[in-house]
């Protein structure tokens, strides 16, 4: 069966990094020359690379299988899928049982044409043109989801602890993306971390109390062990078939990021940043836990999908427990307005007393907000975004991994995975959170000077885009952007790592400049990444990945704005920010690679990185440029959306004065308009950046002085750290100080009083013990002794006296008896 094979392949890809971790952490140090050996690195690369091959195989297999309607082999599988769909989506019965609903046929070869005119694109989707002949991808957008149990950890009454899997198109694409990027980053890290291959590593950024640098053994193998664990955790999160399992791996991802961000643990800044990342995430995870509790209370399961055994549903999952009506809204009780909980056949489940099982609507909102709170923490959304820039303290490969494929992707991934359970209010919250985040981060990125900080804020901003996309019902757009962003952001981080490596750990852009000639490969690949993220394109000719994905998000936002005119900001801010994005990215590129060297010393020592670092750059640049080729008709998009949630198709109609969510058709209609506007914004941002930083027309320093207020505000990151300091830290300190005072003044006093009382009582007790108890015992003893002493006299030892005593005794006894009993 395809499902089993997919499961085995993905399990292999998932568990290989764990094997790598175990081998590296337990055996990495036992090689002959552990501090100088690259064995651990190659183990890690081998594991994750093999994982990539497994994932790729699985992806190709899935694509082939879901495409092969005419193959005899696949017929059984398809009919089975039809049955499943039948069971799960009875309202789609007409569509699914047909196997190939006509309007879902698409052809990607009409890409260019589509960009030319929106009507053409619309036609292709609507009119089901048979395009099998022209060799384009012919993917069927069926609901091909495999879920089930890998292993049952334990059964406690009705509670079943299981390791589940949930494999759909999103899982597969994420797997391939994560393993591919992780492989590249592993390779890059071999070069980047090579200065750890020593017994005596001098950390120039960590100082001892006397001001000298910290000397420590290199930690090469440990770094790769952590990387492997990180990959394992992320893959486990993606493969997880129930949300509690997601939570477990979610935390594992968190601990790995903690370990890696704080890798240079001797540096105060690094350990602080690691703590900050961990603690900020805990805030979000608190919400996550609340969501989990509500879910468990009302649904009694954590599984996403239904577990099938022989085409029978044995365990119902969450997604089929809430049923959407034709207008996209959840089925609700007519009187109370509670959301009904349904079985797999769409009928309402009942409690033991016969009443309908239902969950109050507001609690469904709580679930959504709670889960999203976890995503906010993990994906560094407003207001928990402050940890991500600080996380730059980790080694650059870690930043690349954290920012593209693993940590922050986890939040967006979960939001996408849990999408079917989100109600409109939650989606609106997500949209506004993303909107605020993307603008906030983009403005800060404009003034940041640390090359990695710029990229960090850029990441936050792009994550905001993704969240916005998901929030405005552009599920596919948001996740599409997640994938493309992962490629170009990992590329740019590795490029920045290459620059930092080449400039001997100089990260300040004002000290760089003119590195294009010194580091051509890095500069060119970086330029590709910058173009990609900026969304520049020549429509109809060439378009890098970022253009397609951002275009899709902006289009979704536009469609959303059209449907809900009150929320126009959700369209205009991302549009504006698209320009800002282009501006700050090109600013970064011009600052670093263009113009004249600003610091001759740095420039003189700069050098191109070795092949092991540039090769991943080249690989990633190809993907960054072309992975999304074809836009929403390309392979990637179609693969990704193969299993998109069913209610996306028709959108959601507003109830009362609620939110209307646009149907896919509405979004497609806006593609051209939105794409044009986004492109205009991006081009203007690029031009401004070129004028300011690429040429000498304008004195940038002069501008800085004139706009000192705004600049300072942005440089200080909108004073968020200060705000949190004032809002939380100082009150916390106050409370802590009060607690300390209370502890000292009250508790300690009580305790000391109790202790003193005990001492006094003990003293009295001692007196009593010594005088009364001991006195009594001593009295008995001394009485015994004196009696013995006096009786000793009688014991003369003379035999003959004893005889006399006996006789006297008998006589005396006789006398006594005679007088007592005379009768």
């Amino acid at each position, binding site marked *: 069966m395809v499902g089993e094979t997919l499961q085995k392949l993905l399990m292999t890809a998932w568990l290989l990094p764990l094997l790598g971790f175990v081998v590296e952490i337990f055996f990495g140090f036992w090689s002959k020359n552990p501090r100088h050996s690259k064995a651990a690195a190659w183990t890690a690369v081998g594991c994750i690379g093999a994982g990539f091959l497994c994932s790729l195989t699985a992806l190709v297999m899935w694509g082939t299988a879901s495409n092969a309607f005419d193959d005899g082999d696949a017929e059984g599988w398809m009919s089975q899928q039809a049955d499943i769909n039948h069971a799960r989506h009875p309202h789609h019965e007409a569509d699914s049982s047909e196997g190939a609903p006509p309007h879902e046929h698409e052809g990607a070869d009409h890409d260019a044409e589509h960009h030319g005119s929106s009507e053409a694109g619309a036609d292709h989707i609507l009119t089901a043109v048979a395009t099998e002949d022209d060799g384009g991808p012919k993917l069927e957008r069926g609901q091909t989801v495999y879920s089930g149990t890998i292993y049952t950890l334990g059964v406690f009454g009705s509670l079943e602890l299981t390791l589940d899997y949930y494999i759909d198109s999103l899982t597969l694409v994420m797997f391939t993306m994560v393993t591919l990027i992780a492989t590249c980053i592993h390779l890059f890290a071999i070069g980047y971390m090579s200065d750890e291959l020593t017994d005596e590593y001098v950390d120039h950024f960590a100082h001892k109390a006397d001001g000298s640098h910290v000397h420590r053994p290199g930690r090469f193998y440990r770094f790769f062990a952590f990387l492997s664990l990180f990959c394992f955790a992320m893959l486990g999160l993606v493969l997880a078939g129930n949300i509690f399992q997601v939570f477990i791996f979610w935390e594992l991802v968190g601990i790995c990021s903690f370990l890696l961000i704080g890798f240079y643990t001797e540096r105060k800044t690094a350990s602080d940043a690691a703590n900050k990342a961990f603690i900020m995430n805990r805030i979000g995870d608190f919400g996550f836990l609340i969501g989990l509790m509500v879910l468990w209370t009302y649904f009694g399961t954590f599984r996403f999908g239904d577990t099938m055994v022989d085409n029978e549903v044995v365990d119902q999952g969450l997604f089929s427990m809430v049923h959407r009506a034709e207008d996209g809204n959840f089925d609700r009780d007519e009187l109370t307005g509670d959301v009904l909980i349904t079985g797999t056949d769409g009928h309402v489940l009942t409690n033991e007393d016969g009443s309908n099982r239902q969950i109050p609507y507001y609690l469904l909102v709580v679930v959504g907000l709670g889960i999203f709170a976890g995503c906010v923490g993990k994906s560094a959304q407003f207001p928990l975004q402050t940890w991500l820039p600080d996380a730059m303290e980790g080694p650059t490969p870690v930043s690349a991994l954290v920012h593209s494929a693993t940590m922050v992707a986890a939040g967006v991934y979960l939001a996408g995975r849990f999408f079917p359970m989100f109600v409109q209010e939650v989606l609106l919250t997500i949209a506004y959170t993303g909107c605020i985040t993307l603008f906030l981060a983009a403005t800060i990125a404009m003034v940041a000077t640390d090359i990695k900080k710029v990229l960090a804020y850029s990441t936050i901003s792009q994550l905001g885009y993704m969240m916005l996309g998901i929030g405005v019902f552009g599920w596919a757009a948001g996740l599409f952007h997640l994938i493309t962003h992962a490629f170009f952001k990992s590329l740019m981080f590795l490029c920045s790592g290459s620059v930092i490596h080449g400039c001997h750990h100089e990260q300040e852009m004002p000290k760089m400049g003119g590195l294009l000639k010194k580091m051509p490969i890095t500069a060119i690949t970086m330029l590709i990444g910058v173009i990609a993220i900026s969304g520049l394109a020549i429509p109809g000719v060439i378009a890098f990945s970022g253009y397609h994905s951002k275009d899709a998000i902006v289009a979704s936002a536009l469609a959303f704005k059209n449907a809900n005119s009150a929320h126009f900001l959700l369209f205009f801010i991302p549009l504006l920010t698209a320009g800002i994005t282009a501006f700050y990215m090109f600013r970064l590129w011009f600052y670093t690679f263009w113009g004249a060297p600003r610091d001759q010393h740095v420039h003189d020592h700069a050098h191109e990185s070795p092949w092991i670092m540039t090769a991943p750059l080249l690989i990633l640049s190809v993907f960054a440029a072309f992975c999304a080729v074809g836009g929403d008709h390309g392979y990637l998009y179609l693969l990704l959306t193969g299993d998109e949630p069913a209610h996306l198709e028709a959108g959601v109609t507003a109830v009362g004065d609620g939110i209307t969510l646009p149907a896919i058709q509405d979004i497609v209609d806006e593609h051209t308009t939105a794409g044009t506007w986004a492109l205009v914004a991006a081009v203007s941002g690029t031009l401004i950046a070129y004028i300011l930083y690429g040429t000498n027309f304008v004195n940038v320093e002069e501008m800085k002085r004139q706009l000192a207020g705004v600049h300072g505000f942005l440089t200080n990151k909108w004073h968020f750290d200060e705000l949190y300091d004032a809002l939380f830290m100082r009150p916390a300190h106050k409370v802590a100080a009060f607690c300390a005072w209370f502890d000292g003044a009250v508790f300690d006093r009580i305790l000391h009083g109790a202790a003193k009382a005990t001492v006094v009582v003990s003293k009295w007790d001692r007196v009593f013990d010594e005088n009364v108890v001991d006195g009594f015992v001593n009295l008995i003893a001394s009485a015994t002794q004196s009696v013995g002493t006096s009786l000793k006299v009688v014991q003369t030892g003379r035999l*003959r006296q004893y005889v*006399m005593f006996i*006789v006297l005794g*008998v*006589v005396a006894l*006789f006398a006594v008896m005679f007088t007592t009993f005379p009768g």
Partner: protein
Amino acid sequence: MSLFFTIFALAACLGAVAVVISQSVVRMAFWLIVSLGSVAGLFFLADADFIGAAQLLIYVGGTLVLLVFGIMLTASGPYMKIPASPGETVVAGLIGVMFLSMVFSTLPASKEWKQSPNYIAETVTPEFADSSEGNTLRPLGFALLGVRPDVGQDGAGYLLPFEIASVHLLVVLIGAAYLARAKRRQDNA
């Protein structure tokens, strides 16, 4: 009968008193022979012919010979006479008189006993007691074997005490030999 009784009684009592009074161990032994022999005579008078014979044989013939051997082994010159202090003698005499008067004062109580002129002659039937063998020899032998024809089924036999006594004698034999064996003096070692 009462003449013999008087003679034996006087001899026994006076012999005993003489034992107390004598200072020499050898004389004490002599007077003890007189006293114990007279007691044997009293036994004969009390129809206890076998006990009397045993008294003569074991006491006079056995135990006293043993005592004389003891005297000969221990009593060398200066130790023949070890005088007691006069005070002790007086005190012992007083205590003896007290004890004697105490016992005498209880003698009238013996009237309470169920007395019989000659119980043994009544109970021991001629079938058991051939007068040529003495009155009590055969009944005593049966009694030591656990048979009591004189008192019928209710009487208790003495087989077990008899056996215990025999083992006891064996133990005593070995124990006495062990205790009295020639040992090296401590200071010679």
